[in-house]
């Protein structure tokens, strides 16, 4: 069964017809070719599919594409485009690169968006805040230490 939706993805209005079963993550990846959003579990546990929905991070495997009609969705691609400052990347991303806060990179787009959300709510997080803030994003490679370091650096730089 099909349904038609209108929404804004990465600042661009879009209209699409989707199978009602289509998950937001699959819609973004398969129909809009936004493959920076990944699928790791489909049970809402890993966070690889994290995107921003109306300004808040959500797991796109737990949302039906049919249900986001009228919403605004931002993926890592759109966020990078909009949020970058001087260079090609946002300071969060620069800090990730500097501290090698990624290895395989599969969790990274979701992780970056979660960090964005965290710093938006709390610009000077403690280490515990950081760890809780990214607990919805599993990383199987880094053991998180470098991610925590990267976030600490972003927070510190922004306070200066």
């Amino acid at each position: 069964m099909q349904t038609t939706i209108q929404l804004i993805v990465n600042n661009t209005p879009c209209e699409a017809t989707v199978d009602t079963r289509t998950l937001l993550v699959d819609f973004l990846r398969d129909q809009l070719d936004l493959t920076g959003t990944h699928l790791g579990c489909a049970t809402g546990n890993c966070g690889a599919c994290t995107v921003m929905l109306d300004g808040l991070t959500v797991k796109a495997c737990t949302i039906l594409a049919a249900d986001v009609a009228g919403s605004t969705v931002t993926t890592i691609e759109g966020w990078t485009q909009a949020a970058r400052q001087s260079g090609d990347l946002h300071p969060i991303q620069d800090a990730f690169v500097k501290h090698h806060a990624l290895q395989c990179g599969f969790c990274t787009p979701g992780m970056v968006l979660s960090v964005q959300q965290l710093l938006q709510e709390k610009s000077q997080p403690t280490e515990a805040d950081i760890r809780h803030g990214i607990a919805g994003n599993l990383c199987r490679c880094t053991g998180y230490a470098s991610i925590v370091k990267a976030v600490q650096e972003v927070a510190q730089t922004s306070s200066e």
Partner: protein
Amino acid sequence: MIRVPFQFHRPHSIDEVVRLLSQCVQNGEDVKLLAGGQSLMPSMNLGLVAPAHIVSLNHVAGLDSIRQDGDMLAIGAGTTHHALAKSEVVQAHCPILSETAACIGDVQVRNRGTLGGSIGHFDPAADYPPVLVLLDAACQIVSPSGERTVAAKDVFVDYMTTSLSADEVLTEIRVPALPSDTGTAYVKFTRVEGGFAIVGAGACLRLNPDNTCRSIRVGICGAAPVPVRLTAIEDTLTGKAVDDAFVEVVAAAAYESAHDPVAELHADADYKREMVRVFTRRAVKTAWERAD
């Protein structure tokens, strides 16, 4: 990935929601409401649930309002855990509810999951149910035949079963605005951060000026298939001196009440009972520390 096709409905009012629900029920077709999807979608992705119709609540305006109504707080069923955790009104007047909301899952789950959905899904390990029961919350339910109010304790009837029928929708949850001297706490025991509770315990405690108990309420999840409220001893504790022994009495009562914990892979019934004791103790202690 969802295997079985379904029809998707996007109603804009509760009337429309109820009409769609009752249509499906009359046609003998399986229908599910969709709120935040944080329980429903994983189940559908795993093929555990396969409704023929999905009725979304996410396009009905006003379901996510939080209002103070006299000595009550009226919270829309569509309020997200995140909104509940951040709400100043809730933090001020029913802090146990915001504390509970803040410890559910992770940031993304809280951004999307709703109070109504948690009640509707009623996982025996869910965090709100014991707290709602201890708060004597009232649930506003709309059905084809009209509206009714049901006490939270009567909503949670059995393992993963609520008293809502398939053509009913929960619209609002009413909880008391707690006197500001109430000490409250909700503590939970999980295997990893963001996981469901093995055991969760909530407590509200008010003290008399002489440090005796003015009132105490305790609600627990993980002790039985439905939330446990320590009604049997709550009243008997009024007027008793609040000290370590008092806390132990409550913890022991909690242990006794945990007659039928749902055994899990890494927590069998015996262990869970013990944890009910430990976490009730911790909840009451914290509530005591926070009581003026």
